[in-house]
């Protein structure tokens, strides 16, 4: 046993504390199981939701503090590599952890009301927190092995959460579909990783990049890269592994739809950004393995398919599911507009900032659906007719989300989309920006249908809204205020995102 082999165990105490956000999320999940262990018959919903929210907000605060204090960034000596380079804490991982934790906090607060008359609440909260832990680890994964493990840690609780409404056929069917497609894409990802390992002889991203220049077995490498891309396409709900998304988002409990379409998608992008930029750098990959072209095709197809399919939906939740696929297409520009020596940090940073804004506006929109489901109003556009007269505050928030998702000026979504498309033009891909802009214009059509139904149409049937659930309202309004505040506050966000993204290249 050489001392080198034991290097893994001689980390200083200070270094592992950089993982505090992920550790806090995991401990909160365990604490929720502890609460359920102490009172197995009737754990109080308020206690469970309180513990879950406190844990995720604490983790959010720690992440924000790290980001401001410069942990893992250039100002304090660069990225912190842990456990033999298996994990790395840097600005990008903290930025993404910020998205995961704030979405988790909103989701668990909203779930307090949503789960009012359900059993197995402790399982719901703890699975959510464990999935969030997996996402936080995904953002820090620096080796293909940890990439796979953390992706599974985020996915497995998600499968169970989608099928949480055990007696609802839609939920169970959605869970099964999500699980089957997830299993196939995990297999594809693992196979891709094995091929890359066969060519480069390493799983650590940096070592893969160092060994990638040898032209020997470029075909096998290309196949491996393509398969890894497929695995990430599943997690981000991009073409060609997107078709689980409409079913899963529609069938799942609405807070879980919010969680999956915002946090889980962002986690997929976090890991895709790091793997492709760090392990397969454009300067080093052999000519046959030009993955940027693959991402360009995927970005265009994903955003077009998502938006066109969304325009034809009658069900609001399903429309949001397809719009979420469309937004995955926008975020893919972050990888599709990369060039050797181009303004790569700006492009990637713009995509990260868009995912942060998207985390607020999309979570808010799905939580509004949760609110409507809680009231027992139907699911189609017609059922939303006249909602503004009975629930004006929530309708205002929903209007903000819809216009922000469409990218209209006075909201956060406008600036993030503008910067994203602008950075694509800056990098020389004006046609990517053009396709994105055309799709955004189309998306205004179906987003405004919701607004029109709520404010202009008269209700087809009388319905009574007998409750104003505190948790759901808090979460929806928080998301709405966040979406609004991200307009004046977008400057520091995009600055941070582009600075931390630039250090990856």
């Amino acid at each position, binding site marked *: *046993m050489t*001392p080198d*082999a*034991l290097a893994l*165990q*001689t*980390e200083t105490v200070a270094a592992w504390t950089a993982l505090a956000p992920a550790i806090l999320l995991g401990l909160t999940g*365990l604490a929720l*199981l*502890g609460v*359920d*262990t102490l009172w*197995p018959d009737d754990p109080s919903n308020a206690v469970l939701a309180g513990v879950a929210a406190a844990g995720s907000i604490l983790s959010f605060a720690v992440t924000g503090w790290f980001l401001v204090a410069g942990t893992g960034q250039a100002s304090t000596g660069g990225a912190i590599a842990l456990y033999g380079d298996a994990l790395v804490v840097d600005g990008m991982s903290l930025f993404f952890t910020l998205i995961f934790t704030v979405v988790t906090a909103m989701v668990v607060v909203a779930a307090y009301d949503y789960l009012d008359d359900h059993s197995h609440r402790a399982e719901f909260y703890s699975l959510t927190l464990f999935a969030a832990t997996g996402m936080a680890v995904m953002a820090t994964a620096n080796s293909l092995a940890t990439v796979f493990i953390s992706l599974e840690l985020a996915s497995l609780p998600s499968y169970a959460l989608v099928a949480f409404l055990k007696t609802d056929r839609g939920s169970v069917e959605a869970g099964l579909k999500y699980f089957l497609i997830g299993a196939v894409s995990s297999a594809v990802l693992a196979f891709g990783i094995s091929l890359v390992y066969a060519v480069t002889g390493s799983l650590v991203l940096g070592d893969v990049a160092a060994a990638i220049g040898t032209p020997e077995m470029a075909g096998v490498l290309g196949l491996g890269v393509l398969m890894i891309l497929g695995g990430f396409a599943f997690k981000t709900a991009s073409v060609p592994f997107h078709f689980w998304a409409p079913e899963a988002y529609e069938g799942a409990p609405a807070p879980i739809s919010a969680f999956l379409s915002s946090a889980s998608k962002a986690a997929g992008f976090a890991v895709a950004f790091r793997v492709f930029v760090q392990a397969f750098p454009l300067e080093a990959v052999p000519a046959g393995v030009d993955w940027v072209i693959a991402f360009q095709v995927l970005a265009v197809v994903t955003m077009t398919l998502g938006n066109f399919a969304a325009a034809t939906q009658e069900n609001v939740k399903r429309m949001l599911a397809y719009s979420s696929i469309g937004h995955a297409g926008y975020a893919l520009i972050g990888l599709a507009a990369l060039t050797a020596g181009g303004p790569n940090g700006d492009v990637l940073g713009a995509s990260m900032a868009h995912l942060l804004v998207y985390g607020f506006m999309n979570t808010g929109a799905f939580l509004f659906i949760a609110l409507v489901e809680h009231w027992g109003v139907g699911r189609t556009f017609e059922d939303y007719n006249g909602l503004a007269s009975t629930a004006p505050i929530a309708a205002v928030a929903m209007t903000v989300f819809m216009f922000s998702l469409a990218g209209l000026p006075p909201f956060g979504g406008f600036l993030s989309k503008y910067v994203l498309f602008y950075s694509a033009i800056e990098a020389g891909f004006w046609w990517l920006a053009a396709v994105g802009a055309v799709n955004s214009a189309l998306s205004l059509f179906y987003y405004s249908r919701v607004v029109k139904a709520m404010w202009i149409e008269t209700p087809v049937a009388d319905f009574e809204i007998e409750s104003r659930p505190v948790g759901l309202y808090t979460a929806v309004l928080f998301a709405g205020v966040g979406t609004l505040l991200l307009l004046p506050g977008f400057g520091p966000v995009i600055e941070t995102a582009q600075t931390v993204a630039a250090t990856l290249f």
Partner: protein
Amino acid sequence: MSEWIAIGALGLVAVGIPLGMMAVSAILRPAVPEQGKGATYESGEIPTGTARVQFNIQYYMVALLFVVFDVETVLIFPWTVIYRSALSQGVALSTVLWPMLAFVGILVVGLVWAWRNGAVEWVKSPLANRQKTERNA
């Protein structure tokens, strides 16, 4: 390509030997059909009942909990192998011991939770019991 030829030859031999043995014994042996030869081999015991036994679905939970210990073993084994040599080479006890304690601790939390929530409680169904006695009678 020569090493691939060797592998192909190995494959041919690997398939050929058992096939050859079966062919030779089929030619040489006398045919004496007998009822006992068709019976299921039960280590010399006389087989009783059918092989199509239904297991209780509740074994499923036991099997799931077994996986917890199974995975635990997989990590504890390599850890025990390096434990002593790591200590003798001057690695602090806490750096060697704590990760494993944390790992086992996480599993214990899960196990205790499952236990408290009735995962190992054997639910007796009166209907199933009745059917069982009827089938056996």
